């Protein structure tokens, strides 16, 4: 399998890159959503699966960056893609600020801390006149980008996020993180270095999640605090990663496909698709805790994007 | 019937995931005997006791106790048969009082009705526990904790007690007194299997002894027939 790694990835990439040429509008929409969710779920995977930072507050970055894009384009007339980029940096700033409080916390406290931050942002934005309280903002750039442009932006995010996690995990940082994941004592021995690596991953995660959310809101053109800062975002990311396989790069690639398929198929019954996802996710945790790709890997040794340099 | 078998372990293999800890281990205890198992650290003595008590499941072999096949059963099915383990490190409940610790010992329905009698007996055996019955477990000294652990095990009205390293970290005076109590318990007809680092003392009290080395039984016999050389060989491999 490994022998064909690059040809397979190449075909996949070319396939995705040419969707606007051969795909119908529906396929384009499907691939667009796929790429965006893939990018965000890869980042949750980076945090929870490799860095043992169980974040339940990804929606903080999503909403914060989304609002940055809305405010910058609407109030200051900033060029739309530039405001997406700035939104990403805002997201990193938020992550830095959060880390002051929550990096002292471990495990479950970290999870709760991130969530509470997101809830605070929700309250703040829904009580803030500047962003029109809870009614939300339309994102109205003077020259709205075409669907194809938005699609390529999301493709960059999806492919970029997957490449980023691959590169990080094969770097020195990744080796340290995986050593820590395999053996708790190692992490004690390299305390400071691990702390830096974790912080670095948290920053990367917030940056890419923020950028992706920016693209998502350029596509959705409307942002509202109750949706933007909702825990539902993280719920979806968690389910995608668990179903696909936590701590594997291929996991989110498969999990996202299942999620987008299910959510499009049951588009009119969003709660039923969440209900089903919840049931699938619990079943997977109980029966195959390493997810679809993790189980496949254990049974057959299948792995295309193994971060291990063996 | 002095020859009735209380415990019979045969061909026992135990694995921790990929690592095999016990190899073809056997052990026998007649009713009313004190049997001592000695061996170096990591020889597999605690693994053996934990497997008998049901904390670990063997990959192969059989354990029979008082005529019942118990291998692979969970502890909550083994305790009612009349086997209890006094575990290494005592494992008393630190945030329960001494009294509460003791009555937890008679958790199984079979022993609940005789709880008060058993309690009385244990307070006679270890008067210090009666004095401290309202104190939290973690306020006791090491020796008192060991007495509590033994008392708690007796509350289940056992026929066989497995003792894992009961003298570890205790002062000689305390050890002596605890061994005195063990003899007393044994005289009431309770079979005891001892696992000890303290070779001399455990050989002195035992009717029969086993020596373990690297997960295998290497010697079985009367304590008097075991020479110092054989013990040294088991511990140091020379």
């Amino acid at each position, binding site marked *: 399998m490994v022998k064909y790694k690059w040809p397979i990835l190449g075909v996949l990439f070319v396939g995705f890159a040419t969707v606007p040429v051969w795909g119908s509008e529906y396929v384009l929409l499907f691939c667009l959503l796929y790429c965006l969710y893939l990018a965000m779920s890869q980042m949750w995977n980076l945090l929870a699966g490799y860095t043992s930072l*169980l974040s339940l507050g990804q929606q903080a970055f999503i909403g914060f960056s989304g609002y940055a894009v809305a405010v910058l384009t609407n109030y200051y007339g900033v060029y739309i893609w530039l405001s997406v980029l700035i939104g990403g940096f805002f997201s990193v700033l938020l992550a830095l600020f959060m880390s002051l409080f929550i990096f002292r916390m471990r495990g479950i406290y970290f999870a709760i801390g991130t969530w509470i931050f997101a809830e605070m942002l929700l309250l703040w934005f829904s009580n803030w006149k500047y962003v029109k309280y809870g009614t939300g903002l339309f994102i109205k750039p003077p020259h709205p980008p075409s669907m194809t442009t938005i699609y390529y932006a999301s493709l960059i995010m999806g492919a970029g996020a997957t490449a980023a996690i691959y590169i990080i995990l094969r770097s020195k940082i990744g080796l340290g993180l995986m050593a820590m994941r395999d053996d708790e004592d190692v992490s004690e021995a390299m305390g400071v270095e691990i702390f830096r690596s974790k912080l670095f991953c948290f920053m990367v995660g917030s940056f890419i999640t923020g950028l992706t959310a920016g693209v998502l809101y350029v596509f959705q053109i409307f942002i509202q605090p109750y949706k933007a800062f909702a*825990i539902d975002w993280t719920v979806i990311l968690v389910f995608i990663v668990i179903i696909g396989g936590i701590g594997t790069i291929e996991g989110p690639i498969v999990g996202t496909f299942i999620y987008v398929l299910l959510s499009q198929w049951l588009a009119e019954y969003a709660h039923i698709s969440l209900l089903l996802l919840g049931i699938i996710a619990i079943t997977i945790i109980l029966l195959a805790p390493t997810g679809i790709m993790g189980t496949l890997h254990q049974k057959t040794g299948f792995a295309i994007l193994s971060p291990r340099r063996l | 019937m002095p020859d009735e078998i209380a415990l019979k372990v045969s061909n026992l293999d135990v694995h921790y995931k990929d690592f095999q800890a016990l190899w073809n281990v056997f052990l026998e205890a007649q009713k009313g005997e004190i049997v001592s198992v000695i061996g170096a650290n990591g020889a597999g003595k605690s693994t053996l006791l934990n497997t008998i008590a049901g904390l670990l499941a063997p990959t192969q072999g059989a354990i029979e106790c008082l005529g019942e096949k118990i291998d692979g059963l969970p502890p909550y099915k083994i305790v009612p048969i009349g086997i209890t383990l006094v575990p290494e490190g005592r494992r008393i409940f630190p945030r329960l009082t001494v009294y509460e610790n003791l009555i937890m010992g008679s958790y199984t329905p079979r022993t609940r009705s005789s709880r008060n009698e058993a309690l009385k007996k244990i307070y006679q055996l270890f008067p210090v526990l009666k004095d401290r019955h309202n104190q939290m477990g973690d306020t006791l000294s090491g020796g008192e904790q060991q007495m509590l652990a033994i008392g708690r095990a007796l509350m289940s009205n056992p026929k066989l007690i497995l003792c894992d390293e009961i003298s570890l970290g205790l002062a000689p005076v305390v050890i002596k007194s605890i061994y005195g109590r063990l003899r007393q318990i044994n005289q009431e007809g309770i079979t005891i299997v001892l696992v000890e680092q303290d070779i001399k003392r455990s050989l002195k009290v035992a009717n029969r002894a086993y020596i373990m080395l690297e997960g295998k039984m290497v010697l079985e016999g009367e304590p008097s027939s075991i020479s110092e050389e054989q013990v040294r060989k088991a511990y140091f491999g020379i």
Partner: protein
Amino acid sequence: MESLLQPILNGVLLGGLYAVIAIGMSTMFGIVKLVNLAHGDLMIMSSYLSLVIVAWLGVNPLWSLLGVVPVMFFVGFFIQDFLINRVLGKEMEPPLLVAFGLSIIVQNFLLLIFTPDARSLTTDLAVKTIPLGEHLNLAVLYLVDFLLGGAVILAVYLFFKNTYMGRAIRAASDDEMGASLMGVNTRKIYAYAMGIAMMTAGVAGVLVGMTFTFYPHTGPQYLIIAMGVVIIGGLGSMKGCLAGGLILALAQLLGAHFTSPGYQLLFGYGALLVVLGLRPQGLFGGKI
């Protein structure tokens, strides 16, 4: 000064309600180190259960407790026995994620059956007040919340302290292996403990339903309140649960009093973050 008395009074009474919202979660954390992320949703589920009973029999919501509480015991027992016990182990994430999944399932299940409309358990208590002074009124419903909440916490405390099963649960939480050597089937014991935790959630659900409006997505809001109480008070501590409830409710109501009601929750979270930053193990919690 006079005007401060009202928010303080309400804060104290609301604190009792917060404590009973949190007590079940706190207990389960103390026993199996489980942070039950579905606690809020299961609580709201019992609000709906009460709604159904009230609509069916036409009784006062307080009477519905007789049905809600036993049902919630079985719900808790089965959740623990069939789901959470299977993933309990060295790692903390799997039980957490199972609970998370459960939370989403319950929410969307409620949405499916009861639609997203806001509901409430109406009683004539809601409008009754006892005047205590010129500017001070005691809301009878809040008083009922406080008293019932206090009674539940007392009952839980006595259960753990004085009953044989309560002791067995404590023993298993002190030392799982030690308890299993006593012949305790620790997994079953955890299921009973979860059953009891869900009984408290059942009471909390009915009280919350009587006091505030609720809809299928309100669960997480109460989960965060419960987590706030538990974190401020210290995980697994019963005294801490009461104190945490009081502190959280007072911070919310006093904060809202000095600014605007929209910021009520924000002040609660603020208090929480301060405690987390300064004393991560909570006010009454020991070292973790």
